[in-house]
């Protein structure tokens, strides 16, 4: 495996990890509009992700940092080409992050109402827009010979990308609902589970549409047939098991299954893309790949040494933080947010 391959893998892992982790806290954010019956229940839900959301977001920051360092052309093309998409993603992330912290620091209907709305918007926009951006990227966007991309409105905003965006939103919401029922006790836990069961058929339609549409709109199945079919098969199993474990009230397993659906989706995306990062709709010779978009060998080597040294610690203390807060929360507990 060359260093270029390795860094493709690492960036894929960072984005996939981001959607798995921040996926559930986006979902919890969206679920604050569905599940709670009163303010205390809403606070309880926000507290389930309290210790985690910030570190989860750093997966995205690290993914972007790794793109910048290892594949500067990928970073430059994507961020400038998707300009307005990223403006709205950022506005969403900014509003969302401060809302968690600000919401509980003062009182009043207007005050809480404002931050509640920001949590909803901020938890919906990023997964929707990231879904659209990735869908457009794999379908093909007009990347020119000099690697510059000027994505037009219809390149990013069309039937396929909107469907994928909604599917990503749906996966996150589902993942968040199973997380809430895993982390709480009492009415919130039950309501989250019931709503998850009711929402499951909708997600099923979204997922099925994603698979079929991707088959026709992109070259993923043509390029990586066996892998894609296997991924779809495993995905169907995970989907069915989600329903089964929800029925059994085994929320830990249900959470594992909703997570598996997210993982399979993004792993398939990156497997299908490899060795490309972005597909040019003008000419496949203009695709951004792990070769023409990369940093020098020296930089990749330096980065590899740094990452190999630091990553084990980072993963270990993050895992530890999930262990520290693995107990369920109830409405009677002391809530920070």
């Amino acid at each position, binding site marked *: 495996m060359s260093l270029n391959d390795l860094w493709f893998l690492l960036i894929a892992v960072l984005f996939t990890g981001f959607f798995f982790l921040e996926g559930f806290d986006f979902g919890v954010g969206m679920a604050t509009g569905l599940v709670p019956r009163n303010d205390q229940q809403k606070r309880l839900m926000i*507290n389930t992700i*309290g*210790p*985690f959301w*910030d*570190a989860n*977001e*750093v997966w995205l*920051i*690290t993914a*972007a*940092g*790794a*793109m*910048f*360092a*290892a594949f*500067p*052309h990928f*970073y*430059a093309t994507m*961020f400038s080409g998707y*300009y*307005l998409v990223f*403006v709205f993603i*950022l*506005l969403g*992330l*900014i509003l969302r*992050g401060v809302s*968690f*912290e*600000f919401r509980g620091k*003062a009182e009043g209907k207007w005050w809480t109402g404002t931050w509640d709305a920001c949590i909803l918007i901020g938890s919906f926009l990023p997964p929707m827009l990231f879904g659209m951006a990735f869908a457009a990227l794999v379908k093909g966007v007009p990347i020119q010979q000099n690697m*510059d991309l000027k994505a037009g409105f219809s390149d990013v905003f069309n039937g396929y990308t909107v469907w994928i965006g909604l599917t990503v939103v749906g996966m996150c919401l589902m993942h968040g609902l199973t997380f809430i029922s*895993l982390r709480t*006790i009492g009415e919130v*836990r039950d309501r989250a589970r019931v709503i998850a069961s009711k929402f499951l058929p909708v997600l099923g339609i979204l997922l099925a549409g994603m698979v079929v549409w991707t088959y026709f709109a992109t070259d993923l199945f043509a390029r990586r047939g066996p892998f894609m079919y296997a991924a779809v098969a495993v995905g169907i199993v995970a989907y069915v098991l989600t329903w089964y474990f929800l029925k059994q009230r*085994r*929320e*830990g397993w249900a959470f594992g299954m909703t997570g598996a659906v997210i993982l399979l989706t993004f792993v398939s995306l990156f497997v299908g893309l490899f060795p490309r990062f972005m597909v040019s709709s003008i000419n496949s010779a203009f695709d951004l790949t792990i070769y023409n978009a990369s*940093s*020098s060998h*020296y*930089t990749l080597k*330096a*980065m590899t040494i*740094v990452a190999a040294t*630091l*990553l084990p610690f*980072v993963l270990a*203390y993050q895992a530890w*933080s999930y262990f*520290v*807060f*693995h107990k*369920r929360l*109830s409405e009677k507990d*002391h809530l*920070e947010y």
Partner: protein
Amino acid sequence: MDVLDLARLQFATTTILHFVYVPISIGLSLLVAIMETMYVIKKNDLYKKMAQFWGTFLLINFALGVVTGILQEFQFGMNWSDFSRFVGDVFGTPLAIEALLAFFLESTFIGLWVFGWERLSKTVHLICMWLVSIGTMLSALWILAANSFMQRPVGYEIQNGRAEMKDFAALLTNEQLLWEFPHTLFAAFATGAFLIAGISAWKLMQKKNMDFFKPSFKLSIIVALISAIAIPLFGHGQAQYLVKTQPMKMAASEGLWENSGDPAPWTVIAWIDPGKKENTFEIKVPFALSFLSYSKFTGSVPGMNELQAEYEKTYGPGDYIPPVRTTFWSFRIMIAAGCGMIALALYGAYLTFRKKLEGSHRWFFRLMIWGISLPFIGNTSGWIMTEIGRQPWTVFGLLQTKDSVSPTVVAGEVLFSFISFTTLYLILTGVLAFLFYRTARKGPDIEPHQQTVIHDPFAQGGDTIVAK
């Protein structure tokens, strides 16, 4: 305005506002870590209360620092894609390491700190806060390593039409960084310290919670004093280094058109006319610029006209003089703010150690409240001088600002993002100020936590209740 102007304006506003929150986070996390250390060592609950009360300010601010930081990282790619392509090989690495080494540390352990009071032992909980504090400092180190490369590029070679890294260690031993980092770090400590000292002074003036705010004032004034003295020491080193590596920035910050002559006098104030390339009015202190530049009372400092001719020879025709008035005045405002900080910290420390805080010093307490703004004024004007003074370059000597901007982005897009982010930042800064005020007014009476009941999802049935 075209894309370039708008992108510059956006970078300036978002960086300046981001750099309001970041020094607060660095400063407050250090002070909170010190308070909690005293709690663990002295076993006195007062210090726990202090860590929790001032920790609230840290948390309100922390979220804002984190979320506005994401924009900083994305902005390089969004607005400055040609810059990113040109320097990504070198510049991206410190940014990626910042995320991997610092951001993960801060964000994970701040979560453990906030939610872990009852779940972690005292020592482990204390270590979490120190890791947050170290994380914020490491973050500053790596971002300044990247910035130092822009001020003085080292360890690279131009290959394949871009700057490629040849020596990673050189980035970290860049002498620019060795001066810039401690100077900025102590400025951040001072920011946190003056914030705590100012709020404490306000409460002492009202004679509220004296037993709480007197030790808070004492602790923060010590940190404020140490920092206020350290800042100009490292600043002096940085100025001397500046004369060697970026003489144009130095000349502009002095409003020096012609060579200064030997010994060089320091211009206190001047009316600058950049059009005619002359100053219409000046007040000068003899010998002072020689001392500032070389630590001795002899030596001449080159002027802008001579440097312009020299740069044209090296880099080809063009205007290499940065906006002189901005550079000149931001330098002076920074120095004035620094002097104010030293004076306040000295007098505050004198009152504290002479045990005179009891007495009536309303005028001084009032000054301390206004003093909260001094570090912010210093931080902002310091950055303006550093970044504006480097113009027209983004990477000194290698890449000009006009060649750094994204070629595909249009003015309307940047205008839209500029307006939306600036509005949002201003609103959020207002909310931050409101919450700071509200928390300070309410005072430190934190209600004791309710009894925690623990429900283990891995226990049989998934909902067994274990009373703690």
